[in-house]
């Protein structure tokens, strides 16, 4: 068995050969590669920008209310008028004949866009409150609940998935059965039940005090019922990662379970977590809207996009903008998150990208 070759051909040799041709090969982290793929996906980035714009607009609600609309979210303007093109228009119609045309009483003024100098851009509601102002303030609550519950849900899901996936045994069994149990519950029914029960007297156990009208109630309820939806797939990933050699190597080097979970397992599920987090915000905003629509979410005097639609549904014939406009806000927000989340997934998992863009 004599070999003819005089030099050993190693991987280093390949790198040297390549560097002679193209210059040095620079190491690129998976995150950098993902970012480069994402950077080329203009649609995803455009929708991310839309989401950021929505968040910024809602955050600026107090500025808009005081500087442009000149009214607060809960300020009632019954029997008042405003100027449009030099004409005085009642905010809520008194009924009777106006300029020879019959107008029914109690009908709020419709969307003015910019004709009234920033007042009633999206019309008024039956109490004469400015819909645009309420929309922005409601958006703050919807986004707070959506993002807050996604954050809580994801953190607990990671925690449970790590514990269940790494330890297995009785810990794993208990956590898996807990997932199964919430999974078997009709999610919306459980959320409505919890939301209604808690919004009557709040939660005052185990040293935790949450007032009845607090936004924490829908936030916690939504994050609680959605934990298995994130936790289960993550647990599956960790179960397969646990068998990999690098975990064995870490354990052999004497890494503690805590260290393995934190610095070996967590970075490997980070990309999935990021995608889940984006998509869960979207689904939580929808869930919040549904709960609030049924009266089990955000409680008055707080408003959210869901409660605005619920308030508007009875007046959909006379004042359709009341229900339609908050719905459009929800669709735009959720759509932007869904499209961006999709782009993020394609960027982080290049295999799927290759397959789809054949």
């Amino acid at each position, binding site marked *: 068995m004599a070999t003819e070759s005089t030099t050993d051909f190693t991987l280093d040799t390949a790198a040297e050969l390549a560097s002679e041709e193209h210059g040095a090969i620079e190491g690129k982290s998976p995150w950098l590669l993902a970012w480069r793929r994402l950077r080329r996906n203009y649609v995803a980035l455009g929708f991310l920008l839309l989401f950021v714009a929505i968040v910024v607009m809602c955050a600026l609600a107090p500025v808009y209310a005081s500087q442009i609309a000149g009214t607060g979210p809960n300020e009632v303007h019954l029997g008042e008028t405003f100027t449009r093109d030099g004409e005085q228009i009642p905010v809520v119609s008194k009924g009777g004949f106006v300029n020879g045309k019959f107008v029914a009483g109690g009908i709020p003024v419709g969307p003015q866009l910019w004709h009234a100098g920033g007042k009633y851009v999206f019309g008024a509601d039956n109490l004469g409150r400015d819909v645009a102002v309420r929309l922005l303030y409601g958006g703050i609550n919807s986004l707070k609940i959506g993002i807050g519950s996604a954050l809580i849900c994801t953190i607990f899901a990671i925690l449970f998935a790590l514990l269940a996936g790494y330890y297995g045994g009785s810990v794993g069994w208990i956590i898996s059965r807990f997932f199964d149990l919430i999974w078997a519950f*009709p*999610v*919306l029914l459980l959320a409505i039940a919890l939301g209604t029960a808690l919004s009557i007297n709040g939660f005052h156990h185990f040293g935790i005090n949450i007032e009845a009208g607090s936004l924490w109630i829908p936030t916690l309820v939504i994050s609680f019922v959605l934990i298995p939806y994130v936790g289960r797939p993550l647990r599956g990933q960790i179960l397969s990662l646990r068998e990999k050699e690098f975990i064995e190597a870490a354990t052999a080097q004497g890494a503690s379970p805590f260290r393995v979970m934190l610095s070996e397992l967590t970075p490997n599920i980070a990309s999935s977590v990021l995608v889940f987090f984006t998509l869960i915000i979207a689904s939580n905003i929808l869930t919040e809207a549904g709960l609030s*629509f049924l009266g089990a979410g955000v409680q008055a005097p707080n408003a959210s996009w869901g409660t605005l*639609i619920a308030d508007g549904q009875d007046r*959909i*014939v006379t004042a359709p903008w009341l229900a*339609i406009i908050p719905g459009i806000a929800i669709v735009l927000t959720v*759509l932007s998150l869904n499209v961006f989340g999709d782009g993020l997934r394609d960027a982080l998992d290049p295999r*799927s990208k290759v397959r789809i863009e054949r």
Partner: protein
Amino acid sequence: MIAFLARRLIGAVLVLIAVSFITYLIFIKIPGGDPAQRIAGRTATDANIADIRAKLHLDDPFYAQYWGMMQSLFNGSLKSYASQLNVVNEIKKGIPATLSLCIGAGIIWLSFGILVGVISAVTAGRASDRLITVFALIGISMPVFWLGLIARYFFAQGHPFALLPDGEYVPLTTNPWQWFVHLLMPWWVLAVLFIGFYGRVLRSNILDTINEDYVRTAKAKGLSRNTVLAKHVLRNSMIPIVTLFGLDFAAVVGGSAILTETVFNLHGVGQYAAESTQNLDLPPIMGVTIYATFFIVFFSVLVDVLYAWLDPRIRPT
């Protein structure tokens, strides 16, 4: 297989017990929600209330109350605290509306989901695929109750059409045509959300399957494109869709249709649950939760069995 089924069924019963017990715990300790006080009315004397408490066994320990409630639920004598109506009868009254809604919507979303998925996979990357993706994403981004309100506004309330009836449910046995017309809008509203989702899942499954070796072999044998697509690609891409459909259908029957039922005022089981929850009326909530969980658990067992039958490689362990 039999051992697997038996294990799943025992598990299902345990889940039912756990779910009902948790629901019970959520509602039993709500301050201000004393059912005896509400039944007795405003002018009740303490003796009255005590009487009602005794009759409803409200002074028993909570596990005894739970047991009593489950007993009366299963022998059909459980009554609502608020309306004093029989819970089992009310649920039975709601089932035709809920099932009509869910089955119709299920047929629509499954068939259109498959259609949309196949079209966009076959034309992947082209304009039709992009357009379908956009519509699918918009579809899954809409709150279902809002879509229902808009549909009613445009198609039932005369802006610009008044073609369809504005909500309510007409039993199939009363008038099949009216049943159909009344459900047309709710079916589509409920289905839109799923069509987009199913289309996208199927699209990516098909694109995965197309790269498999056996598909290349089938093409190499000279089979036509459509035969390969229908017999080799679609059949295998459909397996995850079957799972998804089983679970989603169960979820919809078991309560996810609450919002659609409420918007269209269909008086189904979901709407009954929503109304009872708003009144903090424990017995109907228990009844509906058990009913809904039963559907969800039953269908997840069914899906597992179907899965093993469709794909013999997957053996239940």
